[in-house]
């Protein structure tokens, strides 16, 4: 009976909060825009595999030829253009010599260059290694590293083809496949646990979902309550003969609904705009989001009790939010961090929520594979609520 009254009063308060939310047009627009911005920002800022396109590159062909033939550089250019037509990675322009190339880089017209030395054909035809030079732009290490990597791969592929032909030329009995095996005895194939191509979005989308939903409780709850305290409407609920817990339960329900709404938006955006698919069960995804909310409620309530006014509440929130965002492996893998940061990360519940969500969404894991994360989240939630309830009750009647 008491439980029933608590629940129905909580629902009334949640209804009231949501009504206020839906009548606030600007707030509603922001509610939709926030996840869009978030996804777009992190999605487009961070480099992914195919983000390097049409890098301007200069080519200085100084090949002097050997016996009137420039076959070495011709073959090279044909293959290079062939590969580049497929990937569209480089925009190649021709320059006359090395100095012109350097100047182009200095002017910023191109971001690197390829130099074919004068003895290129001579070396290849006389059975020596043909050397190519990649000039990089030292002022932009990231682009030059990517270009370097890509060009090296191109040269390597060409080298392999050439070697393959040479082997066949030496012994016509060997077929092409065996010739490849002689030139390159090891072949590496990369395969994910789940088939298909995965991008940075796959990594980041679950984290952002977890973060948005949980933050909505952690920050939304104190903000909502301290706002009502300041305006004075909280007194209206406090003088009603209801269990004061229903105020917090009701507000939590409203904030959870708001957070889940944003979570769903992120999910839709992620799949429509960035082509992410959920490998595991979608029910489990929502279950995890709810569990995340549960684990954060206590923390939110404690903060609510300590924050006297809205301004303080917001400041406390910001202070806690940023380390949480960056240390929980939402944007950067935890494994990249130094050990002490990793240990901090291990005590943040968001880490576990984001991890579990990633496992389910990207790797298609089920409950048995995420028991540790579940246990941590449940324990954290229970402990925080056990602390929060008495603290809240005291704080409300100061």
């Amino acid at each position: 009976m008491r439980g029933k009254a608590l629940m129905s009063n909580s629902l009334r308060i949640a209804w009231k909060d949501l009504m206020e939310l839906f009548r606030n047009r600007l707030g509603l627009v922001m509610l939709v825009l926030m996840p869009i911005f978030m996804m777009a920002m992190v999605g487009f800022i961070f480099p992914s595999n195919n983000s390097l396109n049409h890098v301007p590159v200069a080519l200085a062909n100084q090949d002097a030829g050997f016996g009137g033939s420039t076959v070495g550089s011709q073959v090279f250019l044909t293959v290079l253009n062939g590969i580049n037509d497929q990937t569209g990675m480089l925009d190649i322009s021709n320059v006359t010599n090395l100095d012109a190339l350097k100047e182009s880089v200095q002017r910023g017209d191109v971001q690197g260059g390829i130099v074919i030395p004068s003895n290129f054909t001579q070396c290849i035809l006389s059975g020596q290694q043909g050397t190519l030079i990649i000039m990089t732009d030292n002022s932009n290490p990231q682009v030059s590293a990517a270009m370097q990597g890509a060009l090296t791969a191109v040269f390597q592929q060409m080298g392999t083809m050439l070697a393959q032909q040479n082997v066949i030329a030496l012994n016509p009995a060997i077929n092409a496949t065996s010739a490849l095996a002689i030139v390159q005895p090891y072949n590496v194939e990369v395969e994910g646990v789940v088939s298909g191509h995965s991008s940075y979005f796959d990594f980041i989308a679950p984290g952002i979902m977890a973060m948005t939903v949980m933050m909505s409780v952690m920050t939304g709850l104190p903000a909502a309550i301290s706002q009502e305290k300041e305006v004075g409407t909280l007194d209206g609920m406090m003088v009603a003969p209801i269990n004061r817990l229903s105020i917090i339960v009701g507000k939590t329900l409203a904030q959870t609904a708001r957070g889940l709404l944003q979570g769903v938006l992120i999910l839709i955006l992620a799949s429509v705009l960035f082509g992410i698919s959920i490998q595991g069960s979608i029910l489990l995804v929502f279950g995890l989001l709810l569990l995340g909310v549960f684990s954060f409620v206590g923390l939110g309530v404690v903060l609510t009790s300590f924050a006297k006014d809205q301004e303080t509440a917001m400041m406390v929130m910001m202070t806690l939010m940023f380390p949480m965002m960056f240390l929980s492996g939402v944007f950067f893998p935890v494994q990249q961090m130094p050990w002490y940061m990793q240990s901090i990360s291990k005590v943040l519940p968001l880490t576990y929520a984001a991890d579990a969500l990633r496992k389910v969404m990207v790797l298609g894991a089920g409950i048995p594979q995420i028991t540790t994360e579940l246990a941590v989240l449940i324990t954290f939630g229970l402990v925080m609520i056990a602390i929060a309830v008495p603290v809240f009750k005291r704080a409300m009647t100061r």
Partner: protein
Amino acid sequence: MLRYIAVVHNEGVALNNESIIVVQNLTKAFGDFVAVDNVTFDMKKGEIFGLLGPNGAGKSTTIRMLSTLTRPTKGTATIGGFDVVKQDNEVRKLIGIVSEKMIMYNRLTARENLWFFGNLFGMQKEELNRRIDELLELVQLTKWGKAQVGTFSSGMKQKMNIIRALLNMPQVLFLDEPTLGLDPQSTVEIREFIRKLNQEQNTTILITTHMMVEADLLCDRIGIIDHGKIVALDTSTNLKNAISGANTTIFTLEIANLTPDLLATLRALKCVETVSQENSSHIKIHAHGDDAFDSIIDAVRAKNGNVVSMQNIQPTLEDVFLHITGREVRDTADQKIPLAEHRHGFGGVSRGRRR
């Protein structure tokens, strides 16, 4: 059971059976600052009781403690026999509160607001609907029922604020500065509404105000509160009589050539308690003793003052307030001010020169 406890704690104070609110040594301290200091009073059923005092005197804190919103540091209070701390939920069923701040959600309509708060009081659907119709009709807001409260004028909002507190048909209504910031017309309307409520429903009303006129117009009894203490408590008439009874006369003087020097001279007179300047030529003097009139006229003449007119006026509540909360009274309040329960006001107030 609780009544019994209350009586035991209440030794020496004649507890009327009809007392609906009994306050005993109620104290609230915020750190070192004592907002409400050992306040003791009781209220009878159907009474309008006013707490009159300047801003920061402890009026709101007293109301917040009585309405279970703040926990007292010391002392007890019961409403309808229920302790405001131990049986807070029972108390909440009996009371309604109109606080200084608007308890209304701007983005909800008038009806939605009332519906929300009525639900929290566990009112049934039909009963609540009827009650909402009734209350909106009462304050003539029926046609605004479906409009968002945020679009209302402050007068309309305050009416909403008051009928919200009446949803659960409270036996006791707390009104914290109910006419603050309202235009004269709305103020009159709200006051009439309060009186009507008291007469028709026999609702016991505790009202705080810093407006003397309001207290004078509405309240059966007035407690003057200053620095957290109730320094006087009686009917408006008795409070005023206490001044006259204490041999205090109040004059207004119109002096054509009023100078600061003249004011200082008047203030220095032995028989003068306070001198307040009302405009460039009018002053108001509280004086005592049979020869006060002569002394004042003599003093003005001695300074070549040109008395245009002089009037002996009846004390208003404002005069009472000035009389009691003057600085010297404050300093000696502990010894000189009789207990709030004392029926005969403040005959023992020291009558030194003020300011």
